[in-house]
């Protein structure tokens, strides 16, 4: 942009940015640095005294089987949830984007879950799959004779939080894909039709490359959201159990910080989580550059 406001208004630019910067500094950057600082301390069992312990918190975490369990489960949980919700949202968006009757109605009925929180989604699916009252668990048992008991069985509980989170993310991803597909030029697809391209060829050669920036964007956003924001699902359903099968990193962090009051130990976990975010961010910039973000 070449034209701009005169230099005498420069003070105004700072003034307009100041509120955002104040909030960011005070409530985001400063507390994050404080997390780093606290991660080198241990709170004494009685009273509020903090003891400097160097890297002890990190050492204890990285040698703790409970923490590795939590990390690995979170990563698997995130990967599976992100894959399911993006793949199904993409398929549904492509199909509803075809010129068919009632496409609008289908679309609006598929976006629903977006309005539900992870906690609400957890409650609904928890009841649907409940070993005593659940309709779905009842029929699963009737048909397969397998018992889906998420209250006692770790695998069932882990599956349940994946289902509840995927359902919620599906609506979110669907909205973005629909918006992206609206920009895929119909003439391009019609030209391909004239050349006799099959629907699969059209999808992989035309549609998919055109919407790959948004797919990549969703991949990043979903990974962060599922990894960090699914706390609610676990808190309303399993509280990390049974036998720590759903003890995802944010839940463990919450327990250590606010139930056991081990602030140093919890802050060290925060810093490890930051490493995770940093890795995702590097991937994002490396493979997409800034551009994908805004597109």
């Amino acid at each position, binding site marked *: *942009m070449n*034209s701009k*406001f005169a230099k005498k*208004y420069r003070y*105004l*630019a*700072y003034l*307009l*940015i100041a*509120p*955002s*910067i104040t*909030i*960011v500094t*005070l*409530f*985001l*950057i400063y507390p*994050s640095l*404080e*997390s780093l600082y606290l991660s080198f301390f241990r709170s004494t069992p009685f009273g509020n005294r903090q003891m400097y312990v160097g890297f002890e918190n990190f050492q204890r975490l990285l040698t703790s089987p409970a923490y590795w369990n939590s990390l690995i489960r979170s990563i698997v949980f995130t990967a599976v949830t992100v894959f399911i919700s993006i793949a199904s949202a993409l398929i*549904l968006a492509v*199909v509803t984007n075809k010129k*068919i009757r009632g496409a609008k109605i*289908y679309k609006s*009925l*598929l*976006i629903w*879950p*977006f*309005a*539900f*929180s992870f*906690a609400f989604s957890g*409650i609904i699916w928890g*009841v*649907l799959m409940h070993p*005593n*009252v*659940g309709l779905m668990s*009842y029929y699963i048992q009737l048909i397969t004779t397998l018992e889906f008991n998420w209250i006692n069985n770790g695998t069932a509980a882990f599956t349940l939080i994946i289902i509840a989170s995927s359902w919620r993310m599906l609506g979110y991803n669907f*909205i*973005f894909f629909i*918006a992206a597909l609206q920009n895929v030029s119909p003439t391009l697809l019609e030209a391909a*039709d004239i050349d006799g391209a099959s629907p699969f060829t059209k999808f992989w050669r035309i549609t998919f490359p055109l919407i790959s920036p948004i797919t990549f964007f969703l991949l990043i956003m979903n990974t962060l959201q599922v990894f*960090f*924001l699914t*706390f609610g699902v676990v808190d309303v359903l399993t509280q990390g159990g049974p036998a720590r099968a759903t003890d995802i990193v944010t839940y463990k*962090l919450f327990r250590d*910080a606010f139930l056991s009051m081990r602030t140093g130990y*919890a*802050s060290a976990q*925060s*810093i490890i989580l*930051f490493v995770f*975010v*940093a890795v995702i961010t590097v991937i994002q910039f490396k493979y997409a550059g800034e551009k994908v*973000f*805004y*597109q």
Partner: protein
Amino acid sequence: MKRKKSTTLFIHLFLIISVFLVSFPIIYALMVSTLNIDEVYSSPPKLQFGDNMLNNYREAWQRSNMGKLLFNSAFISITTAVGKIILSLSAAFAFVYFGNFPGKNILFIMILITHMLPLPIRIVPTYQLMDNLGWLDTYYALTIPFFASATGVLLFKQFYMTVPESLLEASLMDGITPLRFLWSILIPLSKSNIVALFTIEFIWVWNQYLWPLVTTNSARVRVVQIGLKMLIPSDAQPEWNVIMAALIMGVIPPLLVYLTLQKSLVEGFAMQQDK
């Protein structure tokens, strides 16, 4: 475009099944919210609407103090969404229309960096900060720390950059001041972006869980998400019919916001794509 009839039929069948699978949990929640407690615990589980709806909703409303929960959630969601919109559209305006002023890049990076600092990374110190400020158990803790938005700044910045430069040139010739340009030209143009951001942020804040869980304690500021969790007893048989009734009431506001603003939401994002 011609398509075989059988293909069209197949597409409809596929979509009907998908819609059913996606919507079924919600229909089921609605059904459970109309049953009485014996029907909830009957075996095999009932797949039908009961006639205890009114009782369940009345009970849920009273037991959870739903009026207050809805008010609190609505208040913090609207305040935060509006706060984010105002702060991010003014910051984006400054980044686009004032040339290269000293410190511009570093300030922009500081705002972008918030993408890298989700709550769990700073939850202990932010909680302590709320404590020191005396903000625990108040609306302040639930709103002000969330007023900055990297997404919002990016969204508006991107949009302003697509606004034709001639518009600014013509306005400059008329001797327009920056704030007047923002207020009477840019903001009206940004309408669908504003609405899109409002929808996303309203639902986002409405559905927040971890932060209200750790910073609020009293019914005065309790939000829907936490109020609902408190309906589930840890030691007794939960009354799922009452809980589902509360859940349905608690999801209506975000759903309404979404349905009302749906068109602008998709338009707002579509415009971002349109380059």
